[in-house]
């Protein structure tokens, strides 16, 4: 590991903030972390943003960047994974998530909080999962979509809705919320957090990328509830 690394600018999905802040704190060099939504970050990279490393919550946008030739070849790694859970108020009874689940009954006259099902990854995955389990039709008109998964969690946390579909990492951190059940991994496309160096800036990003995939970082990510891929 180099003694003093070059300063590095990382554009990272906002949902990674807590974990990535911790990871960067252990990095022996200057790291600037810019957190925003994946789509914003990708567009900014498309427009020539001064990012050395991009770390997204969404493989689609990374695919776009890759297709545009904006990421350094061979640097892309799907570093983290996550799970979808059905979140409910703390203390509620756990359920088995499968085709037999009577989600409609569980909701009563309440709604199911999700991120935007057409636009935001957590929502897209959630809808896919519910569809593959045959549950979507029952709740399609009962979904309250919000612009990000944290807002969905907030709805559950505040009791505004009885249930929400969120990431495991989110449910873990909120004391008012429990994960009532985990969606089977097979029910939706794998949830990946790809990271890559930006084309033309791989020198600045290489060291940090290496650090991200190193053991120290892995431990921290795991502690925040992420599945660290590529083990």
């Amino acid at each position, binding site marked *: 590991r180099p003694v003093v690394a070059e300063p590095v600018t990382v554009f990272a999905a906002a949902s990674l903030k807590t974990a990535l802040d911790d990871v960067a704190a252990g990095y022996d060099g200057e790291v600037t972390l810019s957190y925003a939504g994946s*789509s914003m970050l990708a567009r900014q990279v498309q427009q020539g943003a001064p990012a050395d490393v991009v770390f997204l919550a969404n493989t689609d946008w990374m695919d776009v960047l890759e297709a545009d030739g904006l990421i350094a070849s061979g640097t892309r790694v799907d570093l983290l994974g996550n799970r979808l859970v059905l979140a409910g108020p703390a203390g509620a009874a756990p359920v088995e998530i499968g085709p037999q689940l009577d989600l409609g009954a569980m909701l009563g006259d309440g709604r199911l909080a999700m991120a935007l099902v057409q636009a935001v990854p957590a929502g897209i995955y959630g809808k896919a999962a519910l569809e593959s389990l045959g549950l979507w039709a029952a709740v399609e008109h009962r979904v309250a979509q919000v612009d990000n998964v944290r807002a969905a969690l907030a709805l559950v946390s*505040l009791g505004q809705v009885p249930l929400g579909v969120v990431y495991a990492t989110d449910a873990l951190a909120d004391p008012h919320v429990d994960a009532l059940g985990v969606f089977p991994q097979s029910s939706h496309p794998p949830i990946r957090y790809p990271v890559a160096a930006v084309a033309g800036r791989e020198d600045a990003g290489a060291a940090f990328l290496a650090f991200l995939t190193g053991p120290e970082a892995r431990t921290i990510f795991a502690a925040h509830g992420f599945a660290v891929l590529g083990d």
Partner: protein
Amino acid sequence: MEWLSPAEWEAVRLSLRVSFWATLVALPFGLFVAYALARWRFPGKQVVNGLVHLPLILPPVVTGYLLLLVFSPRAPVGGFLQSLGISFAFHWTGAALAAGIMGFPLMVRAMRLSIEAVDPKLEQAAATLGASRIWVFATVTLPMVLPGVLAGSILAFAKAMGEFGATITFVSNIPGQTQTLPSAIYAFLQVPGGEASALRLVLVAVVVAMLALLLSEWVSRRVAARVGGA
């Protein structure tokens, strides 16, 4: 090819409805607060003034979050309203509430400026002719501040048409209920290749808001012509 999908039409209609009601309902409150800030002295005036500006200062998401906190069924206010059968959650009225609150500072400022510009000598003249305070307001102050009321309303309306962060946080995005144009636009912008669809909706929003603007300018000119005379 349909230019807008039925769901999108629904979003247009809903945006209009939300903006209209947000503006209309905010109007009397805005006028009252503007009048109080312009003309009265009372303890805590600066606090009221600050509160009115708050939605402008806070990131919209925070405003939406605070609204959630206040109006959620677990909160006292929300619980009380629910016991009365009033619920904003996931309902277009909640979207209107959020839009109204976000536009409130703009509305109040415009009205307040106009009220401050009214010559108190004219109000005095009305009083000497027997008009009580409320009549003075209705027959002299109000007609003279109409341009400001209009300007404030159009600002609030435009703001309501564009409001997104607070609305989606507070009432989420339920097609036909709370999916306004900006939510729909936002959704398109999140996915690769959604720009074209977003652009279509942006154009619709712009056209609608411009029509409202032109209408307000026209009304405003008529009002001004009436007052100006020479």
